[in-house]
């Protein structure tokens, strides 16, 4: 039976939409979740699976991340299906002098903001991750709250619990239009029927702009590609997520059409290594290119030469919902009552998704949020192209 009516229609079965639907249902809202493919079939299913806050900047950026990490912990305690969330701690490594001032500045800012990080020396780095190339390491940053999860299981777990609470989830169902009259949302039309509602949550990830168009607004979210390699299963040799500090220096490389790259490495519960990454503007293309694959191999071999003979079994690329200021767009939109944004989670939506879902649910149920989200509104100046 296809749903006729709902208090809230959530568009998008990624981590953001799935968390939103779950938290709304916990507050007894009557919710329908619409997903054009399958849950976690897009960015939330193919990513590095890190729950990572080390590189989040002072201010709203780290506030959101820390809030969401507390929600990951809450979910781990309350959801039935285990989703392999492990706060193992995370490591950033420095291997070039030019990185040091950027990293120091970051640590300063975080300290001032009340979210300090720990600097570690080369010896400590190698104690934490013995496989790293001792000839290159200058030092690092250690953050005990970071870790990894299994986003596919996280979404499955959120969906399962939401369904128990009465949420109707329609897979392989695409939102085609949203009826707005006199500035208010009236209904959502899909390829399988129309649902009457006065509230829609746009959690369509990289497609958030398409949904925005349906109500006549511009949502400045665009797909941005990130590529990674998966190796064969090997005995445990990487114990924590490892990121290269080049990210602190060259964060913007590639975002204007070129090809950016930097070290990220972790090992899955199954034993496969997940190695990255390259990024580039490739629209909605999920194919990986030769340069990406070779570049990722080079970056990882430099950092961990002993991986030389480990075989790569697959590459993959996915796109994440990118915004100009690297922050999500959350909350109501001027001029369209009942239209709520929950997109633009960039390269950290797995970390942020549960928190965003919680905040949107609070907003819809109480009118307030436990973390102020005014700064994240669609109308903020940092999102305009100028």
């Amino acid at each position, binding site marked *: 039976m296809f749903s006729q009516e709902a208090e809230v229609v959530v568009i998008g079965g990624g981590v953001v939409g799935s968390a939103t639907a779950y938290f709304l249902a916990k507050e007894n809202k009557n919710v329908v979740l619409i997903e054009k*493919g*399958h849950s*976690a*079939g897009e960015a939330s*299913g193919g990513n590095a699976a890190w729950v990572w806050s080390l590189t989040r900047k002072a201010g709203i950026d780290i506030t959101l991340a820390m809030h969401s990490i507390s929600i990951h912990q809450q979910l781990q305690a309350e959801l039935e299906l285990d989703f392999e969330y492990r706060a193992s701690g995370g490591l950033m490594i420095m291997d070039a002098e030019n990185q040091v001032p950027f990293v120091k500045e970051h640590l300063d800012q975080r300290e001032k903001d009340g979210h300090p990080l720990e600097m570690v020396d080369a010896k400590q780095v190698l104690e934490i991750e013995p496989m790293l190339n001792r000839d290159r390491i200058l030092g690092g940053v250690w953050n005990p709250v970071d870790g990894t999860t299994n986003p*596919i299981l996280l979404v*499955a777990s959120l969906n399962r619990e939401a369904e128990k609470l009465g949420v109707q989830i329609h*897979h*392989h169902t695409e939102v085609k239009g949203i009826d707005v009259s006199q500035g208010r949302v009236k209904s959502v039309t899909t390829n399988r029927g129309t649902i009457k509602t006065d509230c829609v949550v746009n959690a369509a990830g990289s497609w958030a702009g398409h949904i925005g168009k349906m109500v006549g607004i511009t949502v400045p979210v665009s797909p941005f590609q990130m590529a990674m*390699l*998966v*190796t*064969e*299963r090997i005995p445990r040799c990487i114990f924590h997520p490892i990121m290269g500090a080049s990210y602190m220096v060259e964060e913007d490389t590639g975002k204007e059409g070129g090809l950016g790259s930097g070290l990220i490495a972790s090992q899955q519960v*199954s034993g496969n290594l997940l*190695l990255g990454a390259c990024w580039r503007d490739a629209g909605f293309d*999920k*194919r*990986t*290119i*030769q340069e990406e*694959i*070779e570049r990722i*191999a*080079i970056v*990882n*071999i430099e950092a961990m030469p002993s*991986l*030389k*003979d*480990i*075989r*790569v*079994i*697959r*590459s*993959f690329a996915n796109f994440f919902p990118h915004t100009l200021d690297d922050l999500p767009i959350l909350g109501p939109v001027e001029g369209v009552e009942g239209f709520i944004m929950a997109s633009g989670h960039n390269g950290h939506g797995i970390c942020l998704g549960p928190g965003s879902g919680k905040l949107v649910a609070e907003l819809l149920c109480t009118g307030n949020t436990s973390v102020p989200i005014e700064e994240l509104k669609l109308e903020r100046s940092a999102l305009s192209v100028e």
Partner: protein
Amino acid sequence: MEKAELAIIGGGPGGISAAVEAAGSGVNVTILDENARIGGQIFRQLEKGFTLTNPEAMGRDYQKSVDLFRQFKKVASRINYLNHATVWGIFDDHRIAYGRNGKSKTIEYKNLVIASGAYDRPVPFPGWTLPGVLTAGGAQNLVKNQRILPGKKILLAGTGPLQLVVAHQLIQAGADIAAILEVGDVKGMWLKLMQGMWGNWGYAGDGLRYVQTIHKAGVPIMQNHIITRANGNQHVEEAVIARVDKDWRVIHGTQKSLKVDTVCLGYGLVTSTELTRLAQCDHTYDSGLGGYVPVRSETMETSQKGIFAVGDGAGVAGSQVALTEGQIAGIAVVQALGRASGAEQKKTLAGLQKKLARHHRLRQVLDDISRPRPGLYELAEDETIICRCEDITFKQIKPLIQKEGIKAKDIKRRTRVGMGSCGGRMCGPILIELLRNLGMQVSKQPDGLNVRPPVKPVSLGVLAGAGDNQ
């Protein structure tokens, strides 16, 4: 970057005949094959010690391939044959990436022929992953190349001609075969079958000789029989077999057990399509041709201009078809490069296409018997492994495949089936057949189980170009 007017992936009969044809007309050809020796699957079946100078040692069924290798030698100066070259990706801008001697290299091609061959069809049933269960191709490799008997008491189970070849070879090598199970219905079709299959796989005479060896050895050929389970602790000790109906479904009450220590499975072949899929060629599904096959024009060109597909990788039809298709593609490439006079080539093409049509008519007979029926994919039980790389059992995927509207892609995301080191070569065909059994519409494109480079495992060192030079 190296350049090639024609790059060919696969050095089996399909690839070689395309190369001979094109090089014969002055085209510069590069062939890439992952093996040490030229010749593809056929050559791998040869006796040890064979060299190109004594083709008679091969027996008549290889004669045609041998003729081809002779021709190959004549035009070899225009062919750059790269052995130990594992193609790991095909990319835009006419580029192929391959690993060789510890390095990753790139070739830019004008035309590409993909002749990647086929492999044994995987069929899951309780016990199929036990040591002692092997494929017919694997068994053949053991006896012919390594002169090792796969076991003491052997059961052959499957369908089609390869079983008879393997049985013949095993008997010659002194093996004790308990029985040969032919799951298909061959009744009254022996003669047709001989003509049909051996028309493509060799010569009818050889087929008869094989059947005679089998009869003389007193090995029963049990038609309409299937293996339903292999039992044993650590290793096969017993096989349970049963009679099947025309849909290959087990007829209850007909089960019996055979004491054997080895089971060879030969349910035909499935196409290797990872390269044509990576090149984004259109495909269609045809279980008789071995699963997904690229859509091709009369000249073997895929939906991607300048990319041709020939041989078993484009539809399992045997080495004679591979030879003919390779030749056609070779001529088409010569024409595309403007190296041909036109009229004469046209005539040759017409002749070859006629020959192909005849082969395909013969192949139909094989199809009638050996095209997989639903019962073949109903043997798995809850604990039966479906994906060997990721250790995923039937129980884990069963609730998903029964969900309405589910796609192979969804199952992959949820269970990791197909995400192991074989890249879905083993579990992919199984999953598709399981879904088909449930009446699922199989999508035209194999989009459910996307291939992503590297299509074959390649070490990080090779990809980084940092490997040693050896």
